[in-house]
């Protein structure tokens, strides 16, 4: 999967001038409100025709302003979950859901329909009109509509913003499965680092219409300074790991990341399966000596790489632990108390429950 996007466009006083390539299955677009995320997605979908632009998906040139190539929207087959639901008011929920099916060559089987409807919890709404749905219900139907259109690329503009955490926790793993199994690439706009950490392989940070940073999710998510837009509280490190074993009695899974064994709440992936762990900096505690008798199950030995300058009394400490880079956020007071400095060896303590992202 590879997606190349290049666009320059003026709308009113706003200029978008962004270029990125992504070879991840899920590319997250991050940026503050008004930074141009929706505009960029509209350009990819073909709804906005940029002054200058180029879109290439898997070597297939979708649009190229210099070569005068512009694939019509309906031939792109890019499923789009809009920021507002945009349901068809004259069709029932069912009519909305199956709308794309009429046009997609590859028909989703009806078992797929049932599965998606159940995951989204909209089975009881099928015969209702969109105007009678609640905000979250509408958004769920919109997600279902895009998924059922058998797209070759999914564009999702804050698809889960209006949903409760429990529902998010049902949809996110589905999207992760979609990414892994059907390998439909996804471009995902979200303000939530938790969502992005779970899904995205590549992160693009947009600021004022320009790409501010782009790259591997693990790298970008651990550079909070670059990420003005994301939840500062959720900055942290992404670890690539492999499922080592399960402890069903205690609902735990052990993941090997580099040389560290990380105990996390049970994952439903077979041993050997690779997973990614987001460890928020604020969840990492540091100790000069290995603590005893504590509830935290993960204690990693490491050395301090560097320390960020203090921001609002907090300092982010980068550690190297068994081949991983981990970020820990501590107070300036603690830094003094523990006399932290680059090269110092240290223990990082992480609670298992803090690694439970999907509730």
């Amino acid at each position, binding site marked *: 999967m590879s997606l190349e996007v290049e666009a320059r466009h003026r709308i009113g006083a706003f200029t978008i001038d962004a270029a990125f390539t992504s070879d991840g299955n899920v590319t997250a677009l991050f940026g503050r409100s008004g930074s141009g995320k929706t505009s960029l997605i509209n350009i990819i*979908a*073909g*709804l906005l025709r940029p002054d200058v632009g180029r879109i290439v998906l898997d070597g297939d040139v979708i649009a190229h302003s210099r070569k005068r190539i512009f694939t*019509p*929207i*309906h*031939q*792109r*087959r*890019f*499923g*789009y979950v*809009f920021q*507002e*639901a*945009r*349901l*068809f*008011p*004259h*069709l029932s929920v069912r009519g909305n859901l199956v*709308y*794309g099916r*009429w*046009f*997609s060559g590859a028909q989703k089987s009806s078992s797929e329909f049932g599965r998606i409807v159940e995951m989204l919890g909209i089975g009881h709404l099928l015969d209702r*009109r*969109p*105007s009678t*749905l609640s905000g979250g219900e*509408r958004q769920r139907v919109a997600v279902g*509509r*895009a998924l059922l*259109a058998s797209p070759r690329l999914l*564009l999702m503009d804050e698809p889960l913003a209006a949903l409760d955490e429990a529902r998010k926790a049902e949809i996110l793993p589905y999207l992760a499965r979609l990414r892994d199994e059907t390998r439909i690439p996804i471009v995902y706009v979200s303000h939530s680092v938790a969502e992005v950490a779970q899904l995205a392989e590549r992160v693009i940070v947009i600021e004022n219409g320009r790409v501010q940073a782009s790259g591997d999710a693990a790298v970008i998510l651990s550079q909070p300074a670059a990420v003005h837009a994301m939840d500062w509280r959720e900055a942290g490190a992404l670890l690539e790991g492999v499922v080592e074993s399960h402890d069903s009695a205690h609902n735990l899974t052990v993941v090997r990341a580099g040389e560290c064994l990380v105990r996390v709440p049970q994952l439903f992936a077979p041993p050997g399966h690779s997973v990614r762990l987001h460890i928020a900096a604020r969840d990492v505690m540091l100790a000069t000596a290995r603590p005893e008798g504590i509830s935290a199950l993960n204690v990693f030995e490491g050395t301090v790489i560097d320390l960020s300058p203090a921001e609002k009394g907090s300092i982010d400490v980068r550690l190297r632990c068994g081949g991983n880079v981990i970020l820990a956020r501590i107070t300036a007071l603690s830094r003094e108390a523990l006399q932290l400095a680059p090269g110092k060896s240290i223990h990082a303590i992480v609670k298992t429950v803090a690694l439970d992202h999907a509730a």
Partner: protein
Amino acid sequence: MTLSDAEWTAVQLSLRVATVAMLCSLPPALLTAMVLARGRFWGKSVLNGIVHMPLVLPPVVTGFVLLLLFGRRGPIGAFLADNFGIVFSFRWTGAALACAVMGFPLMVRSIRLSIEAVDRKLEDAAATLGAGPAWVFVTVTLPLILPGIIAGMILSFAKAMGEFGATITFVSNIPGETQTLSVAIYAFTQVPGGDAGAMRLAIISVIISMAALMLSEIFAAVAAKRSVAA
């Protein structure tokens, strides 16, 4: 109130003329409304003007123009008669044409108003789901402008029921062929003692139109309920 044979014929003819006029002007009205609402082209104001012409000119003039164009000796009339065997002059089809032309601006306006109110974002959404322009039109635009279409059809039908100026000028007042209710009413008003007859026919005309109106209101209510903004 029982109807004489001649009156009954006029009623049937009126219904046929009005229905055919309404239905046949719908496709071109839709197209014209679409072009006027969405198009960006040089002669748009001119097209818009032409569409409104039957409203602006006295019906008699419209009738004469139709007679000159679509009459047996008119350029279009002769062409259609020679090549397709379609004859308008002094046929009920001519009455239908006259009514269709007279109702055309009303239909176009209503439909155009609805088209301009359509949220184009919904059409975009349909396109992202794989619907090409024609399908978007059929599956999204058309259902959304249904209120406008219905309103346009009502106006066209009602206008056709009441039209006589252009009709009588274009295709005369031939019983059983071009004598619609309103033409018959007009004829009654032109002779002494015709008032009672005119009144009778006017009442019939009003009853028919009322029934058609109520029917259409029911349709419109259903259509409105279906397209409430989400």
